């Protein structure tokens, strides 16, 4: 069910109710939590990418003023367990032990080897320099292909290999598709390593309370974290309460069970006092999990008229030194998305997970799907070039037509709904596609040193993670359901408890809009509670654009149950049959009569007083629901980007950017707009600006914002955004998810534009990020002879 005339909240650009406290910082950011007697923790981290630890001496640190304790990994070896990987993607996957503090060996620069605990943060920071660690260097392993060669130096000697897993998929007759093809295009694309860089750094506070513990963390996943802390440390789950207070962004980087969280819990237990740790920005760049980092070998086969016959994808995915929470699952999430919106006869995919001595990779906004979308949308443009065809025309000839939905793709996913024609038509119109093509021709003909390029990206993604049965079939360790409870209070106000865990998305506002309409109560009367395992005991948290699709559906269902219960009580109050009552605008009326009515607030008070309830009716007006989605949802859209590339300096300037997204039914267009803008910024950042670079010894050299270039508003163009609305059929709201769309769509749109600008110069690819220097080298052919290790 979607909006009704009595549903004024859904679809309204309601200002976000959480913003005042988030924007002013007058709230419980984890680092704002100050507990009496709390001790401050700082970590001694390895300066080497790979080394054996031969000695840790912290005796000098213990002598310093303010220092209370110091520990090495060996001091916790018996109780710290191994950080969990919840997604062993194959039966024979190599999953090395991952102690929160290294005991014998470090395998990436930045890995924690010891910690100091002091009465204040300054003393803890000062004491780090007094801890003496002896290392015996081992070879760094930095290049994925070299790591897989015979005789390669090993990240984990015990494993005997740097290969973690091989995950294959074949659908259709791939050989036949390629053998008979008129055109085959083969390319290698590189997904550079990225640093998520949420605005709020990671932070954790843990307080012991007798035998139990309360742990506050800047996490996306309080519920998953609680389970995993119990499983990792052996502390009984019922003795751990996890609170994610207001959290300032995550983008996947806080979808993790971190060494620092486990150690905060163990330190609080060991010391019997509250402990606190907040990372520095450079520490975060080095040791909060990274994203992407794949080598993609992609081949596409097509007939001369452009019809796609088959697609082959071989990935090398850099796991980094260890498998963290969903490290190996990230490329597998992408496995099903390489075919994108296109029909084809055959598809093969394989992914090899490779260990290197770098920070582990894991989920980063889009998680697998940006990588897939980049590869297919880039190679579609190359195929179009090969065929001498307009890239939009090639797409039209291959995409799933509106009337073909629901459509089961070659990868086996069933896309429920979509209208690629409508989104593309709108984008082309807003962009002025043919005018820009004409200008491009003129500038090419004139030999303009500033060339115009046009980039196309017609993307889809799978959101609403996820049906538990599908996750199970992909060997993920947990389900994909979500929980909500809705309770009317005696005064007629409403508390909504959600198992999703907002960290900037605006759930409090969006959920309130949904509930206001379902219950017919004022938006202002609703409070949304989340992120505390004692307040919201059941939940699967927030990632993968799942909150509204799955969590919102749970809210809807819980509201409907509240209304059902209220109807029974109202019928009793009004001395009418339930089926004779109509409910609208928060009021129960006897249909077709002038008889007295009852508001839901009056029903709530009656349910609280419980003086006169129907037979066997329980007191209080509340309900709950746990929803496991039937299937994914599939947002899509058409993004068009025009760039001007200065061929003399290599600089790329985005001249215009049009994003027409179809995210299904819109709850709050302002929130959608914000998600699209932020997503575009992050996707454009991958295309043009950001790259985590390790030097030849395995040190991260982009460890500050002076070196790792996050674009700001000053670097981004005005975005032209619009939407088409093709409701999802897999959930009652018709929503599809929007958290990742902009990021997924924009990277290939921008790079396609850059390459398009440079085609007259013979350029067919520019590695990401398309820095001015790389563009200049692509144009001139001047070799890069001093390249840093990638």
């Amino acid at each position, binding site marked *: 069910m979607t909006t009704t005339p009595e549903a004024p909240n859904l679809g309204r650009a309601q200002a976000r109710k959480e913003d005042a406290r988030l924007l002013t910082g007058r709230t419980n950011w984890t680092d704002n939590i100050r507990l009496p007697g709390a001790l401050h923790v700082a970590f001694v981290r390895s300066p080497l990418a790979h080394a054996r630890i031969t000695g840790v001496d912290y005796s000098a640190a213990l002598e310093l003023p303010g220092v209370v304790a110091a520990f090495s990994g060996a001091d916790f070896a018996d109780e710290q367990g191994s950080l969990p990987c919840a997604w062993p993607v194959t039966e024979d996957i190599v999953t090395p032990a991952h102690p929160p503090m290294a005991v014998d060996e470090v395998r990436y620069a930045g890995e924690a080897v010891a910690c100091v605990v002091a009465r204040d*943060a*300054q003393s803890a*920071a*000062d004491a780090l320099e007094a801890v003496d660690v002896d290392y015996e260097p081992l070879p760094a392993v930095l290049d994925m292909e070299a790591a897989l060669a015979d005789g390669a130096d090993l990240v984990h000697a015990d494993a005997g290999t740097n290969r973690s897993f091989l995950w294959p998929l074949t659908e259709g007759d791939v050989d036949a598709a390629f053998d008979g093809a008129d055109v085959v295009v083969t390319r290698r694309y590189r997904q550079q390593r990225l640093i998520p860089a949420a605005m709020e750094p990671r932070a954790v506070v843990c307080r012991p309370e007798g035998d139990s513990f309360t742990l506050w963390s800047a996490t996306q996943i309080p519920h998953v974290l609680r389970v995993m802390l119990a499983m990792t440390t052996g502390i009984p789950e019922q003795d751990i309460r996890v609170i994610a207070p207001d959290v300032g962004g995550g983008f996947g980087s806080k979808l993790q069970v971190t060494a620092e969280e486990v150690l905060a819990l163990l330190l609080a237990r060991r010391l019997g006092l509250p402990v606190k740790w907040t990372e*520095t*920005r*450079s520490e975060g760049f080095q040791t909060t999990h990274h994203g992407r980092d794949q080598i993609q070998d992609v081949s596409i086969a097509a007939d001369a008229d452009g019809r796609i016959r088959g697609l082959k994808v071989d990935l090398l995915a850099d796991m980094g030194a260890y498998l963290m929470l969903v490290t190996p699952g990230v490329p597998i999430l992408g496995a099903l998305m390489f075919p994108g919106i296109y029909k084809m006869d055959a598809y093969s995919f394989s992914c090899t997970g490779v260990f290197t001595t770098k920070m582990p990779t894991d989920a980063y906004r889009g998680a697998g799907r940006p990588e897939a979308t980049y590869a297919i949308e880039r190679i579609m443009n190359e195929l179009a070039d090969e065929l001498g065809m307009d890239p939009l025309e090639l797409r039209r000839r291959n995409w799933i037509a509106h009337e073909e939905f629901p459509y089961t793709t070659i990868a086996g996913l069933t896309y429920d709904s979509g209208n690629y024609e409508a989104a593309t038509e709108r984008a082309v119109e807003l962009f002025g596609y043919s005018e820009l093509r004409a200008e491009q021709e003129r500038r090419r003909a004139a030999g303009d040193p500033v060339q115009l390029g046009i980039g196309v990206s017609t993307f889809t993604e799978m959101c609403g993670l996820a049906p538990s049965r599908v996750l199970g079939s992909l060997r993920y360790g947990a389900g994909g359901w979500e929980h909500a409870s809705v309770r009317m209070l005696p005064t007629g106000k409403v508390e909504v408890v959600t198992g999703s865990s907002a960290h900037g998305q605006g759930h409090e506002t969006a959920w309130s809009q949904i509930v206001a309409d379902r219950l017919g109560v004022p938006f202002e009367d609703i409070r949304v509670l989340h992120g505390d395992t004692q307040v919201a005991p059941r939940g699967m948290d927030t990632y993968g654009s799942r909150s509204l699709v799955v969590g919102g559906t749970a809210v809807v269902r819980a509201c409907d149950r509240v209304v059902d219960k209220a109807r029974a009580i109202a019928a009793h109050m009004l001395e009418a049959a339930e089926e004779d009552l109509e409910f609208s605008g928060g009021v129960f009326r006897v249909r077709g009569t002038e008889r007295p009515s009852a508001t839901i607030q009056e029903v709530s008070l009656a349910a609280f007083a419980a003086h006169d309830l129907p037979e066997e009716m329980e007191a209080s007006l509340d309900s709950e629901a746990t929803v496991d989605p039937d299937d994914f949802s599939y947002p899509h859209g058409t993004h068009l980007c025009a760039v001007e590339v200065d061929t*003399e*300096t*290599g*600089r790329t300037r985005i001249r215009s950017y049009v994003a027409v997204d179809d995210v299904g039914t819109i709850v709050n267009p302002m929130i959608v707009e914000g998600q699209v803008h932020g997503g575009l910024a992050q996707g454009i950042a991958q295309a043009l*600006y950001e790259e985590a*670079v390790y030097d030849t010894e395995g040190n991260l*050299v*982009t460890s*500050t914002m*002076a*070196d790792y*270039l*996050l*674009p*700001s508003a*000053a*670097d981004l163009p005005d975005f032209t955004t619009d939407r088409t609305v093709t409701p999802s059929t897999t959930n009652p709201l018709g929503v599809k998810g929007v958290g990742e769309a902009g990021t997924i769509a924009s990277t290939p749109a921008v790079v396609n534009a850059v390459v398009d600008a440079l085609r007259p110069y013979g350029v067919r690819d520019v590695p990401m990020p398309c*820095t*001015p*220097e790389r563009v*200049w*080298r692509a144009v001139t052919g*001047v070799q*890069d002879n*001093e390249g*840093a290790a990638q």
Partner: protein
Amino acid sequence: MIPPRFDYTRPATLAEAVGILAADEDAKVLAGGQSLLPLLRFRLASPTSVVDLGAIAGLRGVADEGGHVRVGALTTHYEVVNDPLIAAHCGLLAQATRTVADPAVRHRGTIGGSMAHADPAGDLPAVALALAAEFLVTGPGGDRSVPAAEFFVDYLTTALEPGEVLTAIRIPKLDGWSFHYEKFSRTAQAWAIVGVAAAVRRVNGDITEARVGLTNMGTTPVRADSVESACRGIPAQADAIHEAARSADAEADPPSDLSAQADYRRHLARVLTGRALARAAGS
């Protein structure tokens, strides 16, 4: 990101500041703090004491000294950008200062701090060099003046002796000249990969004199003497200017680092010098 412990003093007079600095070679001067504080927070600097010049009268502000404009060392970038004297006589300085970092930094950071930090990637040293500014210094031995060509000695190193404080920069008025600062950086707030400070004097459609300073093309700012010579007497026209700019990197020894390799920097210096001179010359 917590600095190491240090003493902090805020002397009321220049003499007092010089005294503290002369007595302790590990003391560091704090002006606007936009370079020092990051160094402290990364623990790349561990001074025993930080000497804040903020309370000393007379170090801030802009004055007309006839043939020169005198800019107090503690004058903020924001003040430089908005000062009418600088706009009238040293427009190149204002234009380059407008490109420094972001508004927050420009409200805190000072011209003296930027010069004394002597980061070759900073925008202002190349401007000072191109404009042949003089650096006024007070130390235990009294006052002295150092020409820009001698002030920038090496990477993050100036001619300032222990105990000396930079008090002002004197910039010759280049009335009748035209100018342009061309900055090339990857993001709006990033350091320049290459910057070009250019000023030209034109008579009857010819360039009679040119000044070119380069940002981030060596361990110090670089004066592009070859281009200046090549420009002398050429028509103020794009073709001739770009031809002259081909020697822009002749005096440079650019670094290879994360943001650019040396060969690309050399190429950029040539292209951007041509553009800066052409803009300055109005062609």
